[in-house]
């Protein structure tokens, strides 16, 4: 992604939205890592997955209100890849408010994208705090509907 105005909606696409199987935090992360690693922008899927778990060990990326944003920026990723997982059943993610997580936004970025990285994180946090957005995202029947809701709410 080029620097300049942030176009978050361009980072979401239907193939990267998945309903997670019932399970725990590790299982959810592995499932999302596997989908993310399929992107040609991720040159080394194993390294990416390892980095995601290392980052999660430092501090949980469960920001509360039922949302987690696991993220890393590493050399083996060329550009942003965002994968979204829905867990209607809720997953214990060690979130800061202790509540189960129902929406997981996994972000892969290049280590050279230092300046945009925090902007992308902040934009997703802002998006997810839009009143009523979470319920609409969880209710969306198809990935295409899910992306339509996201794009509509994008700043």
């Amino acid at each position: 992604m080029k620097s300049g105005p942030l176009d978050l909606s361009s980072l979401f696409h239907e193939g990267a939205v998945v309903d997670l199987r019932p399970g725990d935090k590790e299982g959810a992360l592995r499932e999302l890592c596997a989908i993310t690693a399929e992107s040609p922008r991720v040159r080394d899927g194993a390294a990416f997955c390892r980095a995601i778990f290392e980052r999660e060990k430092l501090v949980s990326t469960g920001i509360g209100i039922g949302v987690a944003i696991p993220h890393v920026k590493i050399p083996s990723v060329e550009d942003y890849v965002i994968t979204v997982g829905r867990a209607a059943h809720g997953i214990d993610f060690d979130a800061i408010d202790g509540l189960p997580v129902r929406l997981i936004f996994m972000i892969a970025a290049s280590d050279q994208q230092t300046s945009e990285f925090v902007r992308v994180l902040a934009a997703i946090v802002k998006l997810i705090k839009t009143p009523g957005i979470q319920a609409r995202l969880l209710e969306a029947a198809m990935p295409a509907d899910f992306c339509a809701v996201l794009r509509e709410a994008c700043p």
Partner: protein
Amino acid sequence: MNTRQLVAQIRSSSATGRLLILCVVIGALAGGTCVVFSWLLETVQHLLLDGLGRHREADPNRLWLFVLPGIGGLVSGYLCTRFAPEAAGPGTDAAVDAYHHHGGRVRTRVPFVKMVTAAVTLGTGGSAGREGPLTQIGGGIGSSSAPRVKRSDQKRPNPMAAGMAAGVGAMFHAPLAGALFAAEILYREMDLEHEVIVPSFIASIIAYSVYASIVGFGPVYAAPGFRFDDPLQLFPYAVLALVVAAGATVFTRLWRVVRDAFKRMPLPVFLKPAVGGLLAGSIGCFIPDALGTGHHLLQGAFDGAFTIRFLVLLVVAKMITTSFTIGSGASGGKLGPSLVLGGSLGGIVGLVAKDLFPALEIEAGAFVVVGMAGFFAAAANCPISTIIMVSELTGNYQLLVPSMLVCVLAYLMVSRHGIYDAQLPSRLEAPSKMGNMLGAVLKTISIREAANHTRDLIVVTEAMSLRDIIGLYTSSDQLAFPVVDGTGSLTGMIEGRDIRRALAEEGIADLVVARDLARPHEVIDIESTLLDAVQRMTLTGLEDLILVTQEDVTRPVGILEHQEVLHAYDRKLMEKT
């Protein structure tokens, strides 16, 4: 001597050898070009100014003298505008500008266009000199020869200056002065471009040898017998310094006024030299000696052939015709007219002093020689080369002492406002030297000396939250932070700009940790110099470098911030000055 030193010496010798060969080639080409230029100029002058205009005869054709400079200006203006606009005007300024600001790059076509346009301008009566064109022609030869022997752009100014030296050295039969002229003309203050002296010497020697082999050796003017053997003569010479300084100032201002007026004139550029030529011709048809190079007048002045009245008239008329010719953009130099003006002023002072102080046994011709030197030294801000140039031009080295006095006094009085706008004040202001000078200072400062945060270095762990990092950033004077993992090994660095950007975003203070914010880091040995640090910063685009020791490059021992480099540089400069 170890192997590395031996290899370095062989490489250095090889580079020197290539430069020497290049200078010989440039000198030979410049010498040959001077022959062609002289022939071309003499042919045009013989046919037009002397032929049609009967310029030097007792009954000149005044109508032709009126229109010829205009025709020459029209042809010169058209050719320059059509083929090489940078060949318009005096030439020396263009060459000096190319040296300082364009990496010594002169288009290959420029010497050819300049040669033809200058010959046309001068041969039709335009009042100008041959030095400017030859400086640019020689510089163009030097520049164009350079790539053929694979000189890098960085080294191109040297061959270009060598070409300038060769052109002037050959044409004026003054190889020593030509070489020094190329080194001195580049700066307004008393400063020499020492790097160009050796290449200039070689090119100038070769160019002079080639040129003189064909047109003849010996000085341009015959001024034998003049001597300086009475210290009391220094007083009238001091007066001469005052007079030539005033003359140089008036000439410089007049030329600038005319040039600016032509710039504002609502006419196509190629027509302006024609208008300038006609204006010069309107004076020249009454005073023919005010046209052309004025080369022949100096010999008359040495021989005492002119009266004070004639010399005064010549000074006034020559200043005006030269200003019209060059100020309108016609192709011609300022050195030739300056020598005529200085020589005439010298003749006036000499004749007056001879009448007032008969006991001093003053020879007016000696004052002509010294006046030539003083005027150009003041107008062009190059006293050293001028002293030598006039001695070589006249073949008379007996007048070095009064020349030194007059040149230096006149140069100081005019206080460095000369006829060449492209001159830089000194090497300190030269763009090509900026890197060398900065580098020389930065090389003397060690990173250990410059970096503040060594003993009290703050490092952050990868897990530290953005909230805590902002707290650290605002409560300490450290602007960048090394990031370490659980074992204390470096994994990245957070710069002040990263924190400032994060500050602008909401809702991420607990989500973002140091690892997320960190950028790829660059380490440097704390014992390196600031020059190494600046090069590393430039290559990586980082504002800060993490300092380590050779023993362990994974443990940060300090941080070098960009502004610490600037502070250390300023401190060193203050110490040195």
